[in-house]
């Protein structure tokens, strides 16, 4: 008997089914529904307070779902943590902390190194390569706080790269970042996607979302749209997402006044 030629499809990297997070009676974000496959990149777009950060935390398993499900690589978020990397905003970190850029990137190797042991030569090589990916190889021994905002954001991306993840979550990675760092971040993210990782980034920069992502999820405490960026990032849906902050231009154009 000939073996079945159709291979079982791999589970999507991230699958959300009517995911809802609520605090007491009020939903913070509800009804998020969609899938992200390997190599795809989704921009989470919405105004402040739309629930983007909460959704990211739910995917990380840091926040319990009130209803619906989230599956990462076919498993629960907690079970899949070893394959997921998170890049926070660099300005949330203490700039005076006595660590070097390389040491920050090495922190990404801790889950693989495990308890008690220290990172070894192999880990250092991975960390060094990750730093080179974001163009900071020569600043490896600089103290983290002496780097510029954009450089720090790149170091945090390098830390995530060092984790060798299948899913990458970024929270506003382009905030306050200079143009050179933006380009380097975009290039590194492109290489990650080419290597098969899926990327989900919360951003309010619509222009950069276009450059970095193929799909978009529009959020304003509930999901307004989820799909390819060409068909989903439309004036009506943007108006629905941003409400009064979206200005109608003559014709069909829309400007978002305070993204």
């Amino acid at each position: 008997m000939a073996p079945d030629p159709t291979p079982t499809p791999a589970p999507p990297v991230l699958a959300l089914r009517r995911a809802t997070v609520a605090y007491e009676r009020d939903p913070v974000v509800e009804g998020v529904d969609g899938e992200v496959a390997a190599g795809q990149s989704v921009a989470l777009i919405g105004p402040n307070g739309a629930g983007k950060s909460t959704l990211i935390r739910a995917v990380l398993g840091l926040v319990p779902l009130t209803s619906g499900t989230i599956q990462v690589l076919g498993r629960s978020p907690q079970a899949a943590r070893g394959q997921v990397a998170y890049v926070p905003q660099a300005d949330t970190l203490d700039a005076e902390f006595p660590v070097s850029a390389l040491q920050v990137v090495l922190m990404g190797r801790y889950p693989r190194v495990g308890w008690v042991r220290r990172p070894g030569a192999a880990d250092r090589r991975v960390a060094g390569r990750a730093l080179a990916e974001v163009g900071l190889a020569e600043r490896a021994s600089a103290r983290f706080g002496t780097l510029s905002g954009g450089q720090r954001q790149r170091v945090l991306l390098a830390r995530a790269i060092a984790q060798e993840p299948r899913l990458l979550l970024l929270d506003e990675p382009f905030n306050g970042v200079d143009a050179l760092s933006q380009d380097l971040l975009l290039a590194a993210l492109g290489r990650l996607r080419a290597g098969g990782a899926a990327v989900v980034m919360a951003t309010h920069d619509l222009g950069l979302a276009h450059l970095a992502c193929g799909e978009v999820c529009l959020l304003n405490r509930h999901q307004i749209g989820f799909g390819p960026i060409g068909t989903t990032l439309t004036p009506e849906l943007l108006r629905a997402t941003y409400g009064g902050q979206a200005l109608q231009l003559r014709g069909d154009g829309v400007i978002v006044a305070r993204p």
Partner: protein
Amino acid sequence: MNLFEPFTIPYMQRALVEVLVLGALAGAVGVLVVLRRLAFVGDALTHTVFPGVVIAHLLGRSLLLGALAFGVLTAVLLTGLGSHRRVGEDAALAILLTSFFSFGVVLISRTRGFTADLTAFLFGRVLAVDRTDLLQTLAVAAVAAIVLAVLHKELVLRAFDPEATAAMGYRTRALDLVLNLLIALVVVAAVEAVGTVLVIALIVVPAAAARLLADRVAAMTALACLLGAAGGWLGLAVSYEVSVDHDIRLAAGATIVVVLVGLFLLAAALVPLRRRRGRVAGASG
């Protein structure tokens, strides 16, 4: 002033070993306390250990065990209380620490001669340390040092980036509990030597001074241990000299703290000089 002569006397030798060990241990733990801005929590722990010491004293048991029991209890309570939304961490800590402390005061105030005992518990009697006390201190210090060494990288990660720590799958609450327990262990070890009120200085001051001078966690830790031990040694020597040669009785524990603060101020004065020199070198390079 002679830095070695006082330590030919046996009780001074024991006191010296005690403060060297305590200074180094408190400095190492203090690095994490300072980096995480937890000085208030450390202070709270020192006050809450006090009733344990009192109860142990009233029951005639080892002070160390009483302090240990209460130290663990309050470390757990503090970690749990940190997340109640309405009250706010500072207020809850203040209430916890003062009520525990008051409980200890109430208990001890029923005994005669309570003021002398109170003073001893609060400020220590490092010169009255005997061999058993010293061995107990060494045992506690060894346990704390092992825990610190094993979990060091995770504790530093949690201090630097709590969100990423949780995202990587570590239980931040558990790590917080470990640090609180470490602080409690240091307080317990220091109870007889410098007392509960002054131990916070041993934890915070050497580490704060080291922070001014070091750019890496490893260097900061080494410096903090060194400064802590040096402060202990100098403080003992100074208090001995002044008490014996000039006939002014200076409490040993308090002298150690004043010396440590002096070292801190010295470091604080040196920092801008370092920066200026660094900037000049960078500009010309």
